[in-house]
């Protein structure tokens, strides 16, 4: 790409440009604004600069420089995070991994692949599909999100019900620690290495413990057969009960997704409509996979359970094309909100499956209380709710109302013994809500772990945990809410 001569005297910018090259740094306001938030748009903050390293060495050199000069910094993948993890709250230097996007190695014999952090999730499956393999974690954002970001958020997806979330598919990581030291953990193929499970600790640490620069992942063999069912219900209760009964019947679907009426309105108004009836209360998208033998019976069982719960209409996908259409419609669901609302805020609560009807009723109450529509698109099979609070940030007060409504949804989840996040992470968005599920002591114990890795707290500070007794940070946050 064209060289961009550095037009500033800021010594830090000049020094960073020497590390990564003039064509790999942004520092003008016109460019930086594009980095003032991620998929969570409620908070905005300008970074000091954005650098685009091309190698682990460059990442380490940038980190070392920031560490020595006490510059706050953070990692960013595709910026699809929904909890504000990549928002430069403290005017960080953003280390963007989008140019480290090589597929380094594929080893089908041992069913593994090594990728750089900026490699896009779906591209991995696309690169091995013709050989009969795939990468299982499939967040709906998989068209664009990076595997580095997936590791940081321990991303899940529709098919994680049966196959597990990202952490179950990570075999090794190369990490640049917050002082610039490069370490490797796992990766040598030992399934359960002695000592602490550092891979487990790092996966899902939301970019607060180190910057992932290389990832060894597990690949799976394509299932022999796959069948997908679409079921329309007139009552949310019936759909919820169907979910419960499918699981208690001992069936483990690969995916079990639900959408409610408002969500259906959005996806049908958006770019990938399927033709779902607009007057149904809820739909279920159910997929089973595995060896061919037995799939037919599983489908029959599922159909029977649906009918037992007064399904209005239920059908099995007749072609791969039809199946793909149903999934495209589901997976673009969040973005589809743009078709019916200027802004949305997605929550990510987890509840015991059996409490689904009750919590959905509570969410409907919250929606009425705040006068904001709430759509639900979620992984029903594992009780991972995604209430999408629809609002218009240009209307005074609506953003605050939306935030409050979202927080109350999480409270409802915590109240039935659930959790405040299933897969989108805590980030900036839900750090206060951590108090719904952890005591001060429990939070302190966790920040103590962070301090071991990140003693100066320069890496992605102000995320993941509330800061007990230090209200400065919270004030700063609220002042950025526009």
């Amino acid at each position: 790409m064209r060289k961009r001569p550095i037009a500033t005297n800021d010594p830090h910018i000049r020094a960073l440009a020497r590390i990564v090259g003039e064509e790999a740094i942004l520092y003008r306001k016109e460019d930086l604004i594009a980095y003032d938030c991620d998929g969570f748009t409620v908070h905005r903050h300008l970074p000091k600069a954005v650098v685009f390293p091309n190698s682990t060495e460059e990442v380490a050199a940038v980190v070392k420089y920031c560490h020595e000069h006490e510059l706050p910094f953070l990692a960013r993948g595709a910026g699809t995070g929904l909890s504000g993890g990549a928002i430069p709250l403290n005017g960080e230097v953003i280390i963007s991994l989008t140019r480290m996007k090589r597929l380094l190695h594929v080893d089908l014999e041992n069913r593994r692949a090594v990728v750089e952090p900026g490699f896009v999730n779906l591209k991995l499956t696309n690169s091995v599909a013709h050989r009969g393999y795939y990468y299982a974690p499939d967040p709906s954002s998989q068209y664009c999100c990076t595997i580095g970001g997936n590791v940081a958020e321990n991303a899940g997806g529709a098919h994680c019900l049966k196959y597990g979330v990202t952490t179950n598919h990570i075999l090794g990581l190369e990490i640049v620690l917050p002082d610039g030291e490069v370490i490797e953990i796992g990766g040598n193929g030992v399934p359960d290495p002695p000592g602490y499970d550092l891979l487990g600790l790092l996966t899902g640490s939301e970019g607060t413990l180190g910057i992932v620069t290389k990832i060894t992942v597990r690949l799976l063999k394509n299932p022999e057969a796959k069948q997908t069912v679409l079921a329309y219900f007139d009552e949310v209760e019936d759909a919820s009960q169907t979910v419960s009964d499918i699981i208690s019947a001992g069936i483990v679907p690969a995916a079990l997704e639900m959408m409610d009426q408002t969500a259906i309105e959005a996806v049908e108004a958006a770019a990938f409509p399927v033709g779902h009836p607009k007057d149904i209360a809820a739909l279920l998208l159910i997929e089973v996979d595995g060896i061919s033998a037995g799939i037919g019976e599983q489908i029959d069982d599922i159909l029977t359970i649906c009918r037992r719960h007064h399904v209005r209409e239920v059908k099995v996908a007749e072609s791969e094309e039809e199946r793909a259409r149903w999934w495209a419609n589901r997976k673009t669901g969040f973005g589809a909100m743009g078709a019916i609302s200027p802004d949305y805020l997605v929550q990510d609560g987890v509840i015991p499956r059996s409490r689904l009807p009750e919590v959905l009723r509570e969410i409907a109450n919250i929606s009425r209380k705040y006068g904001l529509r709430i759509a639900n698109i979620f992984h029903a099979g594992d009780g991972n709710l995604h209430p999408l609070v629809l609002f218009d940030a240009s209307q005074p007060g609506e953003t605050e109302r939306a935030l409050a409504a979202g927080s109350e949804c999480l409270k409802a989840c915590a109240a039935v013994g659930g959790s405040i996040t299933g897969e989108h992470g805590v980030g900036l968005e839900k750090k206060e809500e951590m108090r719904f599920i952890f005591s001060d002591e429990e939070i302190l114990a966790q920040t103590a772990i962070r301090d071991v890795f990140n003693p100066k707290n320069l890496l992605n500070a102000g995320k993941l945990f509330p800061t007990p007794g230090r209200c400065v940070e919270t004030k700063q946050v609220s002042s950025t809410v526009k």
Partner: protein
Amino acid sequence: MSTVTSERTGSPACATASLGNYRFADLPDPSKWADCVHCGMCLESCPTYEQTGEEQHSPRGRVHLMKSVGEGKLDLTPDLLDPIFTCLDCRACTTACPADVDVGGLIEQVRGQLRQAVPLTGWKALVNDFFLKGIFPHPSRLDWLGRLLKLYQQSGLQTVARKTGMLRVMPDHLAEMEAILPKVGTPVRKKYRNEPLIKAKGETKRTVAILTGCIMDVMFSDINEATIRVLTRNGNDVVIVSDQTCCGALHVHAGDRETGRKLAKQNIEAFQGVDHVIVNAAGCGAMLKEYPELFRHDPEWHEKAEQFAAKVEDVSKFLYDTGFKVPKAELNVRLTYHDACHLAHGQGIRKEPRAVIESIPGVEMVAMPNADRCCGSAGIYNLTHPDMAQAVLESKMQNVPQDVELISMGNPGCMLQMALGVMKHGRNQKIVHTVQLLDWAYQKEEGKDVRI
């Protein structure tokens, strides 16, 4: 959005209203950015983001910047030129976006503002004015340019220039373009000057007009000829409306919406008497269909533009929809198809040209991976942003199958760019327009000696 003073300005000439820091008439449409929920699902569809990995070179980033200006957080400064003008206007993001955000349309509107706030200066302004205002809208001057090019090619001057290395004094990308210039023929507008209606072969089913295009008619008159033959062969009387002009796409892409509107008005009036306007250049077709956008603030012309746009159709879709004659002669050729951005993303036309090509006996179609990825041509983008155009072309060529003889498509701009790609990669594929294939098959059926 609180700063909207007036969304509809009375006349496009007065600059009284403003929207955040947009302060020139013909304000951008804030509902276009309001649709964007910042989900990022468009990122990977964007060829410029693929190259740089930078958000301000992505659809989401661009929308965010354009919105920031509308919210008064950012000014229309020279530093905005790079994010806004590096966009290829390829519309791939609109296909990918779940919320149907019209990023390309917004980019064009904002370019209109930015070009006024930061006018071109120096040689760029000269070149821009010379070609966009001085040449393209004027058929006679285009003819003159064509004659000059022809002279250059026929007089032996081209050979001399190539041999003596005179071309080496030109910037690389211009010298490369020179190498792939097609052989200039006689513009159909000129050729049929005294024959404004070309009769259908056999029974006349309807009368259609064709957009001859500006540069198209000079550089690719053979495609216009093929279009006429294919249309008349399928029962269409073809008229060549004489006052038609350049579609204005290049002007609108460059932010000169005023000239765009002027040309649009001329075309709308020129084609008033016909029911169908058939276009064989995807970029022009998309522009004609988007004329109403240009008159958002002018109800009278907006309505005329809507009526006009409804008459416009791409030649491949028109043939497909009206039931073209399937040729009987075999072509016996292996080929692949490239989706021109302004056909696939701009007009949603994908299956029709493929169906036309695949109907020809003996044609073996090899699928091109990511066929609807931009080739980097994008109007005059390959001249204004040679580095990016080159990188995008490089990435496109990786996907072009090796074992084909022809690469077919529906846009002359892409044809030049793909020819460049083929040349640079030492490949030997020929580049053809979809209608040329059909034309060849028909000619062969008539017993003519056809050489592809």
